[in-house]
Every structure is written in C-alpha cells, then in structure tokens.
C-alpha cells in the first residue's frame, strides 16, 4: 500500500493550474464527484479538456492518473499484470487499479481510440456498483468515495469506428467542451503564452477564421492549444507571421491551396 502512495504522489498536482471556466462545468464536476458519478468530456482537440481535469484534480486535492488510450491498449494495461521478480510472480497494479485503490481520479484520454473490448472493463466501475473485478487475482475492488472516473473523446472524428458504444456512453455525466468565446479565449492565450493583449486578440481572430473553414476541406480549425503555441513563439520574439505559419497553418493542413488561403488570413491579421 505504501508503495502505491509513493507512486501516486507523482500524480498529485500541487500548483493551481490555470483554468478559466466557460460555464458551470466546475460545479457540475464537483457535484458528480460528490455523488460518485463518472464524467465524460467531449469536445474538439486542444479546447481544454485535459486542463480541466488537472484543475479539477487540484481543486479536489486528488491525484490524477491519466491514461492516453490507443488501439493496442489491453485490459491488463489498465488493470494490471503479474511480473516475474527474482523467480516469483508478483502482481503489479495497472493505472486504473492504482487509482481505484487510492481513491484518485482516473482519466482515460481519447477513450474511442481504445478497442471496444478493452473499454468494457470500466463498465462496473462506471455505474452504481463502482467495482473493479481483477480476474487474474480473483479480487473485487470497491472504489472508495473519493475515486472518480473520467473519460474524454473528440466527436469531431466522423468515423463510425471511432464512436463510443451506447452501453459505455450511457453511464456518464457528459460535459461538452468547445472553444471558448473570443474574449475568454484571448485571455487564456495571453495568460498561457505571455504575449500582449492586442496580439492575443489577433491570434484568436485568426483561430476563429480557420474554424469557419471546417466545411471547406479543413478537418478541424485551429485549437486553443495551437494558438497558445503560436503565442509562445511570438512572445519569444519570432515574427508573428512566421510564428502563425509554422505553429498554425502548417500544423492544420498539407493541402497547398488551403495553406495559401490560411496564410492570407495570417497576413490580414498581422
């Protein structure tokens, strides 16, 4: 048990992460935590889902165990496995088990990337049972009150394969995230990148222009994260047009025509 708490301490967030609430999401998440309900965060990439989880973990003073899901993620990657140590088979908790034992927050990022059979293990944890069966050990863990399960996904991938099973999604309190309002976003970009406010406003305007291109061949517009990255380059003295080209335009598309159009937007802003 002691060993777990040492490893979990690495997941504690001591400094308050910067998070600007858009609506009631913090109250809702806190209430969900109090009543033992799992959270589903959905929204486009780079709009602040992970930052929100960090903020929540800090606010609830709980460790945050994040698992980035991928299509090779197996159940034992989540729950745990036996390892051989000096001739003995020793059980080793996976991140999910670790979080359940310690009553931490377990955050499965991009859950749709995981195979559907893998995500099924979270079902008993995500309803009122709040249990995690560890088949290999014949153990049934019951989550303490402080444990919280959160998952995230990006509904923008228009693929039937990248969708949550109904039985999975109908266990969650779902919070929809989107890019913040221009003023809020400018505040965020300014705060995170350390640039001045006129530049931050221009960056946000650029971001909104790219988002309007969503149906003209661009899969997704520039995320807040991308704008912050461009902002960081600008704050360090890189020419704003260059910074936007490398951090926004080239990151968004390879299509030469769209790139030219994006660059026109950049040059009209800076």
């Amino acid at each position, binding site marked *: 048990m002691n060993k777990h708490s040492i490893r979990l301490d690495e997941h504690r967030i001591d400094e308050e992460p910067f998070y600007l609430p858009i609506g009631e999401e913090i109250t809702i998440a806190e209430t969900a935590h109090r009543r033992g309900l799992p959270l589903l965060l959905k929204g486009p990439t780079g709009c602040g889902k992970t930052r929100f989880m960090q903020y929540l973990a800090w606010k609830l003073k709980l460790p945050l165990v994040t698992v980035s899901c991928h299509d*090779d993620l*197996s159940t*034992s*990657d989540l729950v745990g*496995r*036996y390892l*051989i140590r000096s*001739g003995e*088979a020793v059980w080793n908790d996976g991140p999910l088990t670790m979080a359940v034992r310690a009553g931490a927050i377990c955050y499965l990022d991009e859950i749709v990337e995981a195979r559907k059979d893998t995500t099924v293990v979270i079902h008993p944890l995500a309803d009122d049972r709040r249990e995690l069966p560890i088949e290999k050990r014949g153990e049934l863990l019951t989550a303490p009150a402080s444990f919280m399960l959160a998952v995230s996904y990006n509904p923008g*991938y*228009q*693929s*039937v*394969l*990248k969708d949550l099973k109904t039985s999975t999604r109908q266990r969650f309190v779902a919070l929809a995230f989107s890019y913040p309002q221009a003023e809020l976003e400018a505040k965020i970009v300014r705060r995170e990148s350390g640039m001045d406010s006129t530049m931050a406003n*221009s960056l946000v*305007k650029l971001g*909104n*222009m*790219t988002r*309007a*291109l969503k*149906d*003209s*061949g661009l*899969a997704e517009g520039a995320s807040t994260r991308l704008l912050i990255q461009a902002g960081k380059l600008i704050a360090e003295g890189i020419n704003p*047009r260059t910074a936007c080209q490398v951090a926004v335009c080239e990151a968004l598309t*390879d*299509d*030469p*025509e*769209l790139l*030219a*159009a*994006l660059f*026109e*937007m*950049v*040059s*009209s*802003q*800076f």
Partner: protein
Amino acid sequence: MQTADSAVQSLSTRFYALVNPSLPNEWEVDEALCALDSLDSTQIDAVFAQVPAIWPVSQSLCFSYITAAADILSCLSSEELPGWVQVLLDQYESNGLRSAQRFMADVEEHFLCRMRGEKGIRLSEITSRLQPYASALAGHEMPLLPLPEGGSIYTDTSAIYLPEELGIFATEQKNFLLYKLIISCQWGFIRAGTFATASLDKAEDHPMLALFNNSSNPALQRSLYHFFETVRVFSLLESELPGLMREARLLMPTLANPTATSSNHPLAWLQQGLIHLEWQADTDNAVNRMLMLRLQQLLDEPEKTGLSSSAAEELVPLVERRYPGCPPLSPLIMQGELRWHEVAKAQHVRREQRAELFISALAAHLMQLPEFRAQKKENEQQHFQPDGMQGQDSAVVRDQSKGAGLRDRDAEAVTFIRLDNQDIALPEELRQLAEAIHQDLGEIPAQYISSAAGQAGDGVAVLLPGGQADEGEAFHGQLCYDEWDFRRKGFRRNWCLLSETTLPPVQTNFIANTFEKYRGQIRKLRHQFELMQTSERFLRRQREGNDIDVDALVESLADSLAGRSASERVYVRLARDERDIAVYFLVDMSNSTEGWVGKVIKEALVVLCEALQALNDRYGIYGFSGMRRLRCELFPIKRMHEPYTDDVRQRIGAIGPKEYTRMAPAIRHMTHLFKGVEAKIRLLVLLTDGKPEDYDDYKGEYAIEDTRHALLEARAAGVHPFCITVDRKGQEYMAHMCGENQYICIDSIKRLPDRIPQIYRSLTT
C-alpha cells in the same frame, strides 16, 4: 484590281489547303483574307502558320484572327506571334469566343504588358486562395462571383461580386492585394451592419432608400452616406485586420486619386484621408468643421449604426450652400456600390433556402423518430403496395390545421415543435435553423412543419443517403444524391438519381485467356500477397507482455536453480497486427474505355482478384457509367460479402463500355455503402481513364470540383479514396481533384495488370 484579286485567290488556295478537309464558305474566306492585303509575304507565312492550330479549336475564332492579323502584327513581331496565339487559345478555351475576341482587340494591354512583367490578375486565379479567406471572414460560405463586364463591385450579403480582372497596378502582387482589400471591405459593409434592417419584403421599402429619395440632392446624400459607412468599415478593419490595412496603405494613394477630375472635387480630401483615417482640419470652413466633428464621432464609435445616415442628411444642405452644383463623390474601387435591391433579393432567396433546408432536415429527423416510423408503417400497411420501397401513395394524411404549430419554451430558443399533439425535441442543427428562421420572420410558419411532416410521410427522406433507410447492399431501387456546384459553393440537393443495374454474366473465353496470359504473374502475386497475411497471434517468450509464459518461466527457474543465467523472456504477448481492411474498386465503364483500354482494365481486375484470394481482405467491385443526372448507373460486379465465384468472373468479363463518366454520384454511393462496413482501413480505389464528364453540361471545372468534393466527403466519412488513372493528361487535374499523393497516373496501359496489385499492396501495408 486584277492583281489584288489574284493575290486573294492564291491566298485562299493556300488557306483551303491548310484547313482541308473542311470547306468553309468562300465569301467568308475571301473577306477575311482581304485583311491580309497590307502584309508582306513573311508576315503572311507567319499568320498562316498558326491557322492549323486555331482552325480545329474554333472556326469563328480563326476568321477573327485572320481579320485582325494586320493589327496584331503592327504590335507584335512575327516571332512573338506563336506565343500570343497560345495565350489566345487558352483564353478561348477557358472563357469563350467573346473573351478571346476582346483579348485580340487589345494586344497592348493583354499581351505586351505581361511580356514586360506587368500583370493584371484574374478573378479565377485568386479564388482558390481568397475564397476560403472570404468564407472564413464571414464565418460561412461567401462566394466570390464575377461581375459582368463594366459592372461595379457590390455585395448582396450572400456573395461578393468582383471584376473578372484587375489591372490597376503594374504587379500581380499588388493587384492580388487589391482583390483582398475589396473583399475585406465588402465584407466590412456586411459586418458593420450597413445593410442591416428589419425583414424586408420589397426593396422599395428600404428606409435608407426612402431617406435618399426625400433629400434635396439624393445622389450627393447617397455618396456621402456611402463614404461615412466606408469610414466605419475602415476603422473596423483597422482593428479586425490590422495586417491587411497596413499593407493596403501602400495601395491607397493610387486608389484615392483615380482620375484628375476626381481629385479636383471639393471633397476629394475626404477620400484621401481614408489612407490614415486622418483628415486635415480647416476651422474657417463650416463644411470642414461639421465633417471633422462627424468623422470623429464615427471613429469613436465605429460599431454604432445610424450615425452615417444622420451625418449625410445634415451635410447635404451645408455642402450645397458652400459648393453649389457639387457633384456626388464617385466611390473608390473597394467601396463598390451599395445595392439595396440586390440585398433584399438575396435576403428573400436565403429565406427560401432556409425554409427548404428546414423542411427537409425536419422531415429527415421525423423519419428517425420511432413513434413517427411506427405510425408510418401502420399507414403503409393500410395502403399496402407490392413495390413497397418507393410507396409514393402511402402518404400519411394528417390534419395539420390543428396539430402543427410552434412552441417556444422561452421567447428566444426554439427547442420543440408540436405535431399531432406530440412535442418533438429538435436536434442542435435544426434548432439553429429554427432560430434563424424565427429571427427572420418572428415565427415558424405552420406550413413549414406540415410540409416536413408530409415529406417524412411520403418517404421522400428514405431516398436520402445517410437517412435511416436500411436498404444495405442489396438495395435495387433508386437513390438520390446531392451534387456540388462550385459556382455557388453549395449542393444541388437531390440532384442525381442513381440506380444499381446487374450485369448479365457473359460466357466467353476472356477469363481463360487472361489466366493463360498472366499465369506466372498471378502465381508470383499470390505468393507475395500470402506473405502479407497476418492475424492475431500470441508471441511467446517476450520481455514484456500481458501474461506469464509458463513454459518459459519453468525453464527460466530450472536454469537459475541449475546455476545458469535465467532468461528474462517469460511473458506472452498478444500481437494484434491483423489486416482489417475493406476495399471497394470503382471501375470507369464510360465509352472511352472501348477497345483495348477496357480490355486491359478487365485483365487487371482478374489478376488482382486472383491475387486477393490469398488475402482475407474484404473487397467489392463496382462499375459505373450513365447519362445525365437522372440516369447514373452502378454495376455491381462483386459485392463486398460475395465470394469470388465463376459468376463474378463472368461479370468481370461482361464489363464493357457504356456511356459517360459522372464519377461523383458513384463515389457518394460507395461512401454510403462503406457506412455499413466495419473495418480499420476502408479504401476506395477509383480506376478511370479520363476526366469526369457527362452528356449535359457536366464537364470541365464543374465536374472536377464536384468529384473533388465527393472525394472530400468520402474522406470525411473515414474512407481513404485513391485514384488510378491511365489518362496521360491526368497530371493536370488529378492533384487538385484527388489531393496530392492520393492518385497515380499510369502512362503505359499495358502495365496496368502488373501495377494495380502492386499499388494495392503498397496502399495497404
């Protein structure tokens, strides 16, 4: 006279020899050739040398060319003529005879300026860059459309109308920037609310027009109003698009003084002040004092509407007193013209479109509702029809007069509609539409809802792909698909009717011959494909894994007891590198594939199918052709889940040239079919021999843009399209149509059976 006649005679003999075998009208030829009278023999040779290039393209163009030749050669040397003719033909092919004739008429401006590196720029050259820019500014589609010659720039709030060519500046770069400035400025008028009014039924009702008409000098008041609005727009642009305005300042001095007369205008200083949004104060001048006051107000509150009209109204008498007979300010190029009538028209069109969209979206939504479908089914059973699917007569007849209506939860948000005493919650997209309609009309007319219910009841929505119709692969009816119209940047809804037609199997020795011809190759390919076959399997003795490999562990323990070094490889890992691939091959069956092109394509298919037998990849083959939008045909050769049998082989043998190449509906249908296929990789391989084209006006840019859009839609639906073309001219348009690296042009058709399996292999590994 005699000699002149005989000279024309000998020229016409030469001319007839050049255009052989056509036999143009004698008098027409003579008339054109008379114009060559003044040229010497080398010049005439040079002129004639170009005739074989122009004649097959257009005979009228050729006559115009000969008639104009003397004038042309007064500007150009004989050596420059071939280059000029090339540009002329380009002009003709892209813009037609009129435009080519204009081009001919002004050799100096249209050709020599460019030869000197000076260049105007055409609207068609800039749209690929500035169209997305305009739409991104507006936040929705904002088409950039060409103006008729000589018309002035304007926006009707749905689109921006621009001159086809701009040549005000010497360099292409500056002219491009001017286009960008014009677009931004026109958008600025929309953004600044210049046209914003409550809903209008007729343009004549517009309060601004009424105001102008009541003025003592409508034209002057109008031009002042336009100027004040431009000040607001510029000040908005200054804050919204600072980068553009900084660059635009370089253009402004030229733009603000277009002609000598305009710079003599008593108020010319106003327009010059636009450059820096600063004006020279002159305290002795009452007009100037008032203007300065008003301008300051506008700059202080650029977002506030209404200031301009009161300022203009106030200034007209002052200006008239000080400068009697003062003409109106002529607008600068980027100001364009404010056209209220067009705005009102566009508003009307938008309203209609919104209604149409709302009705079809609501109908589709209703179709999805279980209670609605249940009711529909009930009704259908009552009016049972043998051919069920289309069921035109099985309309659900409802009494709409009482049932339909709108319920607002609160004053603004439209969230529910009421139909037959049932409250139906609207999904987000519909809700937005409903709100837009509500804002425009103040209510949602009951007939919108009733016609949606009617459509849903008629099963019109069943025809839409992506609706809830579960026809699957075995669907034999007709499907409606939208078609992308690049000119209006929107879909022509339900434009193409596509049907699946079964090819009758043909008993020929084609298959046997192909086997014989490619026996070695098939064997080699099979072997190669077998190596690609992998599946889910356990990897034993791994350093890490999901579980313990007991055999390895026992060995390792025994080793360590025996004093030897124990292996660390004691885990089992499940390797999941199975191929989970579904692929559709879409084969062009247009009549241009007649002959050996078609034969080689068929052979390639046989070779590929034989090789694919070694893999577990699921695949289907469809051929497509058709004529006109209402008869797009798709020929299933092998459906996705059908085994590769003799029937399939015979159907491959039955592939033959049919009609035209309307590619996009076929692509859209394949995307639709893919929706029912679960696979990690979903690949659509398009096999074609040329550009998309149909019997009607479906050709050229329109066809390419529609196909490109269909491919984009496929990509958005998680399908990877890939095009293989044997068109030698493919390089010209394939990159644009399919995207870089998403296509391959095969020069040597003979190698197709060899190349296609290779391409398939590299695409899927």
